[in-house]
């Protein structure tokens, strides 16, 4: 095969391969592609994560010093979510604060003027959608999810009180507890 003859042969082979390639593309499998951005739901305490009453007064309402700043963010599919709820709760309602004795959650009151408990309300509610504890919870807000707010962030203040009116005299000492805050979709 001369040089020219060989060149023509390669050219012809290339054309054949090109046609064959087109034929192969016509037989490609259908692959359905689906990419779903994961839903996002987060809660952040932006301020007041540590609350201290330096000198508790018996038989009186004791205010925790500053509000708890709470930021709740979500990115959801409104077709699959109807509401976002924020819940505060104590893990063991009978022992909301523990020291020389125990202070139950019924003596801890919360208020969120931008939410549901606009007046001080005891943490004695039940869980919401599995979040919280029976008799130790308080639903802080519930917001409907629509197209306009499927992605949103809200900031709220939670005010806390310790109501010792009618409660037995507290033995002296430090009483500590952890208030849990979590959001849930429904």
């Amino acid at each position, binding site marked *: 095969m001369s040089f020219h003859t060989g060149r023509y042969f390669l050219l012809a082979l290339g054309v054949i391969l090109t046609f064959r390639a087109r034929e192969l593309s016509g037989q490609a*499998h*259908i*692959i*359905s592609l*689906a990419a*779903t951005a994961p*839903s996002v*739901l*987060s*809660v*952040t*305490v932006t301020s*007041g*994560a*540590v*609350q*201290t*009453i*330096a*000198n*508790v007064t*018996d038989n009186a309402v*004791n205010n*925790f010093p500053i509000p*708890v700043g*709470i930021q*709740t963010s979500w990115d*959801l*599919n409104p*077709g*699959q*979510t109807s509401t976002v709820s924020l819940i505060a709760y104590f893990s063991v309602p009978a022992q*909301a*604060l523990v*020291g*020389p004795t125990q202070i139950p959650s019924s003596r*801890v009151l919360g208020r969120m003027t931008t939410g549901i408990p606009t007046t001080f309300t005891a943490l004695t509610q039940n869980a919401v959608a*599995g*979040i919280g504890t029976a008799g130790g919870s308080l639903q802080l807000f519930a917001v409907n999810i629509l197209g306009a707010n499927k992605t949103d962030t809200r900031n709220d203040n*939670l005010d*806390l009180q*310790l109501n010792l009116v009618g409660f037995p*005299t*507290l*033995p*002296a*000492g*430090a*009483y*500590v*507890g*952890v*208030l*849990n*805050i*979590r*959001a*849930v*979709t*429904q």
Partner: protein
Amino acid sequence: MHALSRQALTGVAALLVFGASSARAQAGLTSNLATVALTATKAATLTVSTDVATATLASITDNSTANNFSQVNLTTAWNLTAGSSVRLIGYFSTPAQALANGSNFIPSSKVQGRVGATAYAAFTSGAVGGVGVAGGSLQLFSQAVAAGSFLGTRNDVLDLRLDLTGTTTVAGDYTGLLNIQAVVQ
């Protein structure tokens, strides 16, 4: 063409399955757990109160112990985090002049006190736990306390009298101030 339709149906089915699983994930989606640490401190307290501000003796009898003041009821309350005893001390700031009538004085050694059925004793002891005056004090009680009794209260009757045995007083009104204070040790 038949194979193509089958593949397309497979893809649609996969999408439906994927979508269903996504819906399940959003209903009941929970956030992270945020927490707030709460601390409330009840301060230790120790208080003494009396039912009257004044104890009186209408007429002094010289050379006698029959000089009883009117009764004083004491209430002592404590709410503690530590300590082994609560002690109540009565004392005069200036022992040599417990009661005064101008320049005539009755010293604290002539004033006696007792709580309950105990014997009378003069106010001549030293301070207790920094409370009191040397030579002008009297410990009225010592109450043991422990973890189970850090919160408590007790009521006592304080009897006071003048022991003027061997003493003749100048006529007149004698007044003085008895201090009563509790201390934890």
